[in-house]
């Protein structure tokens, strides 16, 4: 391990167990440092929460919430985007290494490349002409991409099947397997059929260009390739791929086959997600306070991103499902993703999420306070009841929907909790949830709004009779 590892503004000194940000020593707890080291050492991949827990707290049974707090503390120091949450899979360190940082070990072979971050991608150049191959490789490297090259179609196919790539730049006239044959093989291979391909060739026939497009090539660039066009096309295709990868990750999250049972007698499941009429608990969280007022647009967007990152973490940490995320409001459902045998467990998970949200918001608030920015709080409303859930789709869009009085009630309670003059970090719980958890959760009676109670302390676990 190197003495000093640099990532953007951060400098990590493993031997001293110290982190410097912008040249200043950062106050970092021992566990947070360990979490950071694991993420940095394994930055070429996503590290699961289970692995992090095992490596940072070996031999101990630790609540995931502890891990989230450490990750939040690190995000507070390094920026919210420094550690990405990959839904359903874990965390990944995203800061680019400085010039003197060692290269990360090669990723384990996989056919599907990870989502592209920070504009850098893995690109394969397949061209039998050495001058063209070197020139394309150099041009792409100057754009910040990692580039590998091969001189025939067969080798290209072998590499693509063995390693993850984000993009293929393909010449048509090559020995062994030419560009057309390779395009056909990619089209017929389910694991590679979505790989973006740009054909680069100096063929002059329009029919050849048309054939490439028919075979699935995304684009065609005539040689000699204009560098400005190359950059624009590659950038655009990588962005499309990134969005597609994000959608896939979301779908994977939505259909995360966890062996969960069907939910309720009238509900079916999509993967393991309930679809139909179910009993569930809804949590609505709103960014409250004057945080967004008078903020420049870019800072407001940054704040919304940081807030949403933390809140989504809190929901997913308790196995909730994010139904909608609209700027400063998140609607999450408990009881549709991983159905508990008793509805009280879902309610309890929602209440724990509210506590986690308060804790995470507090971390963000302290960071802002240090920068003399307006305070923020997260207002939460929780309600339980029958819901109609499922995937509703229009011609070109689909969404997981949940409809029912509990959604409306949780929204009302979140709005009430967000009103000025409320306690900081207040969570309001509807009567049906409160009654079901009577004696197990500390809830304070409220007169306004009627029919709800305020969460004082969420249960760390609920022991159910029988």
């Amino acid at each position, binding site marked *: 391990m190197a003495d000093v590892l640099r990532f953007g503004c951060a400098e990590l000194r493993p031997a001293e167990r110290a982190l410097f940000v912008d040249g200043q020593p950062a106050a970092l707890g021992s566990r947070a440092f360990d979490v950071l080291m694991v993420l940095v050492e394994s930055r070429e991949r996503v590290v699961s929460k289970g692995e992090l827990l095992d490596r940072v707290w070996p031999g101990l049974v630790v609540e995931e919430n502890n891990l989230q707090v450490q990750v939040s503390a690190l995000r507070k120091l390094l920026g919210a985007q420094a550690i990405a949450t990959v839904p359903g899979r874990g965390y990944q360190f995203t800061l680019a290494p400085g010039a003197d940082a060692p290269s990360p070990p090669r990723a384990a072979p996989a056919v599907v490349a990870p989502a592209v971050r920070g504009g850098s991608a893995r690109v394969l150049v397949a061209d*039998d*002409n*050495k*001058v*063209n191959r*070197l*020139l394309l490789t*150099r*041009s792409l490297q*100057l754009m910040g991409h990692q580039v590998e090259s091969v001189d025939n179609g067969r080798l290209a196919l072998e590499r693509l099947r063995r390693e993850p790539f984000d993009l293929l730049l393909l010449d048509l*006239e090559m020995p062994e397997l030419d560009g057309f044959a390779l395009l056909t093989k990619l089209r017929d291979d389910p694991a590679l059929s979505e790989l973006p391909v740009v054909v680069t060739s*100096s*063929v002059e026939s329009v029919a050849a260009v048309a054939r490439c497009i028919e075979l699935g090539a995304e684009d065609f660039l005539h*040689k*000699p390739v204009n*560098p400005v066009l190359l950059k624009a096309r590659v950038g655009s295709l990588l962005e499309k791929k990134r969005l597609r990868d994000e959608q896939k990750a979301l779908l994977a999250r939505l259909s995360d086959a966890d062996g969960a049972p069907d939910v309720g007698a009238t509900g079916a499941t999509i993967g393991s997600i309930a679809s139909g009429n179910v009993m569930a608990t809804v949590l609505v969280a709103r960014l409250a306070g004057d945080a967004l007022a008078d903020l420049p647009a870019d800072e407001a967007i940054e704040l919304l991103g940081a807030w949403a990152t933390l809140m989504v973490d809190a929901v997913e940490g308790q196995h909730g499902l994010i139904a909608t995320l609209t700027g400063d409001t998140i609607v999450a459902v408990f009881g549709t993703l991983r159905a508990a045998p008793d509805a009280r467990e879902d309610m309890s998970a929602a209440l724990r999420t509210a506590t986690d949200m308060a804790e995470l918001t507090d971390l963000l608030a302290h960071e802002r306070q240090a920068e003399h920015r307006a305070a923020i709080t997260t207002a939460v409303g929780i309600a339980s009841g029958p819901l109609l859930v499922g995937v509703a789709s229009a011609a070109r869009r689909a969404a997981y929907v949940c409809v029912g009085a509990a959604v409306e009630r949780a929204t009302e309670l979140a709005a009430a909790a967000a009103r000025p003059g409320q306690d900081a970090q207040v969570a309001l719980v509807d009567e049906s949830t409160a009654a079901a958890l009577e004696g197990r959760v500390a809830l304070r009676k409220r007169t306004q709004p009627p029919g709800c109670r305020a969460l004082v302390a969420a249960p760390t676990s609920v022991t159910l009779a029988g």
Partner: protein
Amino acid sequence: MAEPLLDPAVLQGLSDTVGADFVAELVETFASEAPAMLAELRAAQTAGAAERLRRAAHSLKSNAHTFGALRLAEGARALELGGLPTSAAAFAERVAALETDFAATLARLREVQHG
């Protein structure tokens, strides 16, 4: 009328994009690769292999365009689109002309690099 040997704007654009040092490296790669393409043209003609001939001419044309070597590119293109020649003597003459153009192009490219 014959095309000019070199379009200096293409070479300048290449230098601006990937750096003069890299262009010098690329020119030397071209210098070592092109003779094999010219040899393949002759071999393909002797063997009566139209596709091999077309491919070799295509590769030469592609590289010539990269450096803005207009005359060489035009000569290679004519062979690429012309198919197998009916007259071996005329073909040998055209390949010889290409070799002359290649040598002159390479000399000019090196001159520009070191100029």
